[in-house]
């Protein structure tokens, strides 16, 4: 009984938030409702006993993908009035896609109901006495490991493609060598002098900022820092 109540609760919230994703005026609200929809889907997975899928849904979609969505929507200044103006033009296409999806889903679920024997022909049914984490792991990493690796390679290629497309020429930007920054010692940059009372450092022959010909004399001991200049290296001590 409680399971039914929970199912209808989560399913109702899922449907309402999914509808709100499309109809909300503020895009940030849309994304937040999308997150709510993901959550309720995870709860439905839990009710169905698929705890691994539920957690993965939350980790991957809510914890990473939706963060990026939210990020982009918050950063980009999208003119949604303009986007909305095309609503009537695109409505038939959207409706067609939706209808096809709906029919397919109905066929899948109907097949379950109308032909119960179909579940017997599953390629890899859930083994008895095994948690679904273990069953999924065995399927992915033991039975279909090469297909799984191939899928990973496809994603890797996509990632490298994105990096290649956005990689800029390094020479135009000021490049930092972290090793030099970390290797820097106080002795390279700080000089302790004893200045007599009443005499300015100028009278000792020390000028701040150092003049160029002094720099060439002093480079012998302070060369490691030479290329960086004084600005922009707040390597704290």
């Amino acid at each position: 009984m409680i399971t039914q109540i929970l199912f209808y609760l989560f399913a109702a919230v899922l449907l309402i938030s999914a509808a709100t994703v499309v109809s909300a005026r503020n895009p940030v609200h849309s994304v937040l409702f999308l997150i709510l929809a993901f959550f309720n889907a995870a709860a439905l997975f839990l009710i169905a006993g698929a705890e691994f899928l539920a957690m993965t849904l939350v980790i991957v979609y809510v914890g990473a993908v939706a963060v990026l969505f939210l990020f982009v929507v918050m950063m980009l200044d999208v003119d949604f009035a303009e986007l909305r103006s095309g609503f009537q033009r695109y409505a038939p296409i959207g409706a067609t896609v939706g209808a096809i999806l709906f029919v397919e889903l109905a066929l899948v679920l109907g097949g379950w109901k109308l032909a119960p024997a179909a579940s017997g022909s599953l390629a890899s049914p859930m083994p008895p006495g095994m948690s679904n984490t273990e069953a999924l792991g065995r399927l992915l990493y033991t039975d279909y490991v090469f297909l799984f690796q191939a899928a990973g390679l496809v994603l890797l290629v996509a990632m490298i493609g994105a990096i290649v497309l956005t990689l800029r020429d390094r020479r135009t930007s000021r490049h930092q060598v972290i090793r030099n920054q970390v290797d820097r010692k106080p002795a390279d940059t700080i000089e302790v002098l004893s200045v007599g009372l009443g005499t300015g450092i100028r009278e000792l022959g020390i000028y701040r900022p150092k003049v160029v010909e002094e720099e060439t004399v002093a480079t012998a001991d302070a060369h490691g820092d030479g290329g960086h200049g004084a600005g922009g290296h707040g390597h704290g001590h």
Partner: protein
Amino acid sequence: MYDFFHNTNLGIVILTFAEALALLVPLLIGVAYLTYAERKVLAAIQLRKGPNVVGPFGLLQPFADALKMLMKETVIPSGANRLLFLLAPMLTFMLAMLAWAVIPVNEGWAIADINVGILYLFAISSLGVYGIIIAGWASNSKYAFLGAMRSAAQMVSYEVSMGFVLVTVMLCVGSLNLTDVVLAQRTVWFCIPLFPMFVVFFISTLAETNRAPFDIPEGESEIVAGFFVEYSAMSFALFFLGEYANMILMSGMTTILFLGGWLAPFGVEPFTWIPGPIWFILKVCLCLFGFLWVRATFPRYRYDQLMRLGWKVFLPLSLLWLVLTAGALMAFGWLPNA
């Protein structure tokens, strides 16, 4: 009586509520005294006295602070999105509490001893970023938004290496259940064979909780106070409490994954006289002291240094160690459940 609490719906609900209270009340007191401990430890490291006026040794200071926060006015900026502005601190605080449902303080003492405990913890801790992003956006302020962006990038980056550390531990345990993780450490705590992963995990938890030296989302010298610059009174206090509760949670995770949870060290006589929960609390306190110690010792990281550490050092290192661990387990036949 036993039958009522374990076999009827009402009984189970009442029992769960009681268990949650029994965990959350000590946790909140712990959070209050963590703020006190932080000020005392920092003071001791900096040769100061710290809070010492309210009550003996300043012990009532956290409650005085809480009362002050309650009395103050909650200011909502005029350009802010009111609903989200108030939702964000609540979300942060709730998520920090929610994760405790699966933490086993002793054998069989977890409120929900679920099969996928590690994944649950990982899922909840990856949601923590929403409280910060929503706060930054809803405040309608430049500094808050900058802090939120920094935080989102930082938390998503460090989750990756944390995930690999978790996978390494899972490999050695052969289960995702947190009780199994602790029981698998009866012979040796994982902090010894997986020492590099322990270090990576501890540093990642610093980044995940936005603590020094990775507190650039707040960065008070650069962006005032980052994502919670517009918050005041209780809404600020909820962020504050959430951050400290997250610190305790992350210390609890470190304890369970690497320091043997409630197990006594070496499992020998004088240590085993002390009950498990005490050991658990002691280990959590040790990790928390690490948090405070690091804060007193290290200057804040620069943003690009932080990203470099996460992606160019921790990610390859944890990936390499994962492969090494898997190889060693396979080669020596140490795989659990094999």
